[in-house]
């Protein structure tokens, strides 16, 4: 009698075998469901005689798009129309993100201000704008432009050179001149120089302990270099100011009511969330950190730069990126107020060609690409700033 031989575990009690069984069942279930859906879809498509695939890309789009960054006409193909929409989404998202970070940070700091009036007003703003659906806010701003603002003839003129009317936002721009191009190149060069200067300064400080006034020099380079280039290239000061001729403005840069309403809505809504993120980040750094930094004799600028900000940013950046992604996703609501973003163009394409599956898949793919690339960037950043633990 051999009692040492291990007792055989019954099949249904063995976690390892059960795990395999469950996984097989899951695969089977998902497989059957997708087979069923695909089978139905193919049958339906055949019955309605809709062809599948992206062949419609090359066909003539035959619809106009109001706002475009690249040349486009109704005679162009669907793929070009979709590209126009994609670029429009990119523009709104990019400008929106920059303005939101600026405004949200100011709001978050104002929320913590020792000034009672400012702190209370910011708190009210944050609560109110968070609690009203973004779509409703977009509708409101859209109506604001079309119903509440006057015609160009009576346009509001809050700042010289800037006009607000039911044709949108119109403002003056410097007259085109090659000097601006050179100044722009100089700005790029200045950024490059600052990058290498910082590296060099850090290396020198590590080797010799001498501190290089990096902030002042960087600032001087960043502002001074383009300015000098502009001055050397002839210092043009002519402005292209909008003028009222007939029923509308001529000259200057005019931004459509749809774009302005979308941008305004997105920025005001998302800023309320960003403000909360910034506030939480600032509050997460303990008071002792600041006191300790000051007691070892750091200057106020260094306290902020070397002690407070690195710790606060570690808390702020992850939720901030998810807010920026939200803004990008919410920009798809442009379709409701008639701004031709990617979803809007894709929607028109679906209606005209009947290629519903391809159209929706394309929309999902574009936004997925946005969010996956952002989270890849986030993971890299998180790894870089993670606290090194031993």
């Amino acid at each position, binding site marked *: 009698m051999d009692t040492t031989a291990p007792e055989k575990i019954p099949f249904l009690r063995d*976690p390892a075998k059960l*795990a395999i069984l*469950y*996984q097989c069942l*899951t*695969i089977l279930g*998902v497989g059957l469901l997708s087979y069923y*859906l695909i089978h*139905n*879809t193919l*049958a*339906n*498509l055949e*019955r309605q005689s809709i062809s599948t695939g992206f062949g419609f890309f090359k066909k003539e789009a035959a619809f106009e798009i109001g706002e475009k960054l690249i040349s486009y006409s109704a005679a162009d193909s669907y793929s070009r129309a979709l590209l126009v929409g994609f670029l429009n989404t990119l523009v709104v998202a990019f400008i929106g993100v920059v303005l939101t970070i600026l405004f949200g940070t100011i709001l978050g700091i104002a929320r913590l*201000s*020792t*000034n*009672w*009036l*400012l702190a209370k*007003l910011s708190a009210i703003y944050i*609560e*109110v704008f*968070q*609690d*009203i*659906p*973004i*779509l*409703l*806010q977009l*509708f*409101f701003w859209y*109506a*604001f432009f079309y*119903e*509440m603002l006057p015609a160009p003839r009576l346009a509001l003129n809050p700042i010289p050179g800037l006009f607000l009317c039911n044709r949108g936002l119109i403002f003056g721009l410097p007259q085109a001149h090659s000097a601006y191009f050179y100044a722009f190149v100089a700005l790029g060069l200045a950024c490059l120089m600052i990058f290498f200067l910082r590296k060099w300064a850090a290396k020198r400080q590590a080797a010799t302990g001498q501190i290089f006034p990096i902030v002042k020099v960087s600032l001087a380079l960043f502002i001074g270099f383009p300015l000098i280039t502009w001055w050397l290239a002839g210092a043009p000061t002519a402005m292209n100011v909008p003028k009222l001729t007939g029923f509308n403005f001529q000259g200057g840069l005019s931004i459509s009511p749809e774009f302005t309403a979308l941008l305004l809505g997105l920025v005001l809504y998302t800023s309320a969330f960003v403000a909360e993120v910034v506030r939480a980040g600032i509050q997460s750094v303990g008071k002792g950190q600041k006191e300790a930094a000051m007691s070892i004799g750091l200057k106020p600028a260094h306290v902020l730069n070397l002690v407070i900000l690195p710790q606060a940013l570690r808390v702020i950046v992850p939720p901030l990126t998810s807010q920026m992604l939200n803004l990008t*996703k*919410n920009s*798809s*609501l442009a*379709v*409701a107020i008639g701004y031709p973003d990617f*979803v809007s163009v894709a*929607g028109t394409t*679906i209606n005209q060609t009947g290629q*519903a*599956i391809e*159209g*929706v898949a394309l*929309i*999902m793919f574009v*936004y*997925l690409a*946005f*969010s*996956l690339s952002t989270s890849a960037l986030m993971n890299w950043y998180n790894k870089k700033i993670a606290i090194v633990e031993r």
Partner: protein
Amino acid sequence: MATMEKTPHRKAANSIRPPATSIGVIGWMRANLFNGWLNSILTLVVGYLLLLTIPSFVKWAFINSNWFTTSEQCKAGSGACWSVITANIRFILFGFYPHQLQWRPLLAVLILILLLFFSQNRKYWKKSLAYVWLLGLFSMGLLLKGGLGLEVVDSDSWGGLPLTLLLSVFGLTAAYPFGVILALGRQSDMPVIKSFSVVYIELIRGVPLISMLFMSSVVFPLFLPEGVTFNKILRAQIAIILFTAAYIAEVVRGGLQGMNRGQYEAAESLGLNYFQAMRLIILPQALKIVIPPSMGILISAFKDTSLVVIIALYDLLKTTQTTLTDPKWMGFSAEAYLFVALIYFVCCYAMSNYSRRLEKELDTSL
């Protein structure tokens, strides 16, 4: 003993009142509004801006406003025209629901408010509350849909506030179990189940809700066999459920990860299998942790239901817009949108306030 007697006496005799500028209204203003030159300037600038806007707003919204007039009288006046709301309130709140039957959606909304009111008290958090909710949801559905002696109302004519509430409350209730399963799947050791869950969650969280709604309105009918059709509201509801579940999954995952490792080990050492351990030990604790963040999801689901406007469902926002396309009431968008914004704000503010309170009450840490 002697010093103890002496102290109060001396205090009473020699106490000096603080200077008048550091107490009372002046002191408060010095401490909170005019501490430092930067704050003084800010106070003055903000005060000036408020002085510019608030009186003219009050004049527009209250003093010169019209409340129960015709649209002609409104157009003649200079103030806000709240008549656009009062004249169309039944359409805005209930959409195309038959006029003489509108007491039914009203009753359904009141039942929901009553249920929410009772559920916020933690004294009533028992199993019986779940049954009361089921009963409540069932009777709400019955009231809206009809049947059992009530006249049947086709769901195409549902609209307004009941539709908004229906989509968000049913959406969250149905999405919760699905979200919990997804979260457990994501935490699982089985590679197949884990990868399915991860792909689903990340896919849904990466796309905007509007693409899901598009899918529900144009792609979903293609998935069904010939002859089978779902109505538009149900399709939108399914899209909202699928969407919300991914967000719930992430919140629940946070709760699962926040649990002490020892809880899992203790459950295993008691000889509980996976399902018993989850049902009896892990989930009751994890779900309690995630109640406040779940409220956040309810709030955003409630706001997000307004997106069904884009696929032409008559929710609260769409009925308001429809009112504004009536030539009689055209041009009063500001008033109408402010009214809808007020409804949304009151609901969301109540919920977020409650969730903050709950967070404090449920916080067992020191």
